[in-house]
């Protein structure tokens, strides 16, 4: 042990050469993430959190649901609404919602910089807020794209965004959104609920956005 300690002393000249540039190196952001992206120094801490172990998450048989975590959730929005994965959701126009700002709340973990080696077992108090923001970013971006595209609109194409939708148009739009988000047809009761929106006095574009939001953030799109 003493010999080892002596050996350690040999490293002294090495540490003597640490310089102010140490912290300015680009950080590796890990597998499955965009490499080379600058990560603020303030995102560093240490080791793991929470756990997925034990009986804590026990549920009654057959009532268990699986959390649709960040990547599948993102895919559902990007694919479902035909959006650009890299830009569809950025806080302050620069920080990725999925891979950075809301990652842990959406069921991910950052082992390399944040030192989080485990993901949360279940959605946290903040998850629903993050879900709201990300879906709203996605829906509003699609809406504005379709407004510009007019007749070539991709999603919001069943009624004019400046007009007043009919019940049938609402049904068509809702059905399409159910397909895109939940991969199923809406049930009659759900269509009835959607059609009641026409009494709320919302402008067509706002109504379209809220339809998109409400279906996209429904628990069925988060818990599988």
């Amino acid at each position: 042990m003493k010999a080892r300690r002596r050996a350690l002393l040999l490293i002294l000249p090495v540490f003597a050469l640490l310089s102010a540039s140490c912290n300015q190196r680009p950080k590796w952001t890990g597998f499955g993430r965009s490499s080379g992206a600058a990560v603020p120094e303030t995102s560093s801490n240490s080791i793991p959190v929470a756990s997925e172990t034990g009986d804590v998450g026990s549920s009654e048989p057959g009532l268990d649901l699986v959390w649709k975590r960040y990547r599948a959730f993102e895919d559902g929005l990007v694919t479902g609404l035909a959006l650009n994965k890299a830009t569809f959701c950025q806080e302050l126009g620069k920080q990725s919602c999925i891979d950075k700002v809301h990652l842990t709340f959406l069921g991910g973990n950052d082992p390399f910089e944040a030192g989080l080696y485990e993901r949360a077992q279940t959605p946290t108090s903040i998850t629903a807020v993050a879900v709201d923001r990300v879906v709203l970013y996605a829906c509003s971006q699609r809406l504005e794209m379709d407004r510009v595209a007019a007749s070539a609109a991709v999603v919001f194409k069943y009624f004019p965004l400046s007009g007043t939708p009919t019940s049938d148009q609402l049904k068509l739009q809702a059905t399409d959104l159910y397909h895109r988000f939940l991969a199923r047809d809406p049930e009659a009761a759900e269509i009835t609920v959607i059609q009641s929106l026409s009494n709320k006095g919302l402008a067509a574009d706002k109504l379209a956005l809220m339809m998109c939001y409400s279906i996209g953030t429904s628990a069925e799109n988060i818990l599988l």
Partner: protein
Amino acid sequence: MIKSNRRDALKSFGGLAVLGLTGNAANLLAQAQGKKYIFTICAAGGANIADCFLAQSTGAAAYDNMPTINGSPLRAAPVLSNSIKGVINLGNGYAQETFLKKFAADTLVMTAEVSSVNHNVAGKRAVTGDNANQGRTLPEAIAMAYGQGLPLANLMLAGGGYSQNGDDITVPDQYRAQVVADPLMFAFATHGYKGISKLAGEAEMKIGRDLRQQLEAASRLHTQFQGGRAFESYIKNRDSVVEMLEKGDTVTKLMLLDPATNELEKYGFKVSADINLVREKFQNLSTDIFEARLALAFLATKNGLSNAVTISPSNTPLIASRGTPNSPIAFDWSHVDHRGAQNAMWSYILKGVDGLIDLLKATDIDGDPGKGKMWSQSLIYIATEFGRDKVKSGGSGHNLNNGVVMVSPLLNGNKIFGGIDPETALTYGFIGDTGAPDKTKMMKERDIYGVIAQAMGLSYMGRGSYKAVVRTT
């Protein structure tokens, strides 16, 4: 005194408590009056008490030129001229003496010999008292007792073993740690729609959310999975926490980003009204994650969001032209340079705590002067994994023998509970009821937990009595 007999509690709550679905469960456990705050400051890497308030002028770990601390048994190591091997200045120059001059009356050292020198295991035991209270962490216990109704009662701004959930499966979800990786960006996670679309204001969102609720009620998923833990817990959080956060304008209250370098206005955001207050104490919060976490901890408690916050420094040195205030891998740099790491990191930690206490002393609970200052109901626990070998120079390994610092008006401060042998710099324990030193006794993690619990008014099966350590008014 709040009794939390786990068995009775479980019997009363049935399965719901296990599922984390009953806010009332915590109420039954706590029935607490008012708020109490615990701030666990993680001196990560192994902070040695003999290099701080139990520093000695003779013996194995002696310091030269120790400052004189009048009217206190507590000691202070001097500020050393530290560097990372002669090239990078190390430390912020903050004197331990300064801390004692300001806060000695509320500061105590409690000696202990812990049970693990594995960072992860020891960090967790530092907050669970080695499962003293059925595995419940201190932040979980304090959040349950005094954080009812708070949307983010147990705010976790740390990592490592300190941040892990406790092993008590009866702790409801809302009192489990809410982990925040980036304190500067956290505000964005507290508002569901602000700054996204002009089409989505409060009135529209109300309609959208009502619609969602109706659609869910009509869905097959609702029929099939109603009553399941995941479904119920998610809906409950969404319907209560989101609204609470938004209505309280949490996004503004917690906004720490500098408007000068971020386009906050363009996106409809505003910086916290308290930004100058926290900046005065934490001038480097934009670049120093420890300061940012301290600032967020204060804002979250001040604004009634949290009452149990855990905060750790970064493992990465914050190297700038003038040097770095913190060492690489925090206190664990002691392996390379014991004195340099301990001296710099104690200064780094204490300076941060100094700023936090100043803020708590200046701030009314819930903004209500009638409730008193936040500090009057706060306890700061400087937790660490273990001590280090008792040496004057060179690198040092881990050592179970140590002690911890606690600062609070709820404690019988300006005292050392236990003692230290000056020759070996090894500590020994004390009698909990009388506070009398006992060289044959070692305090353990469960004693640290017990002292804090007693000071905070919590009782549980098997808790010792530490009457001498707790301030009686």
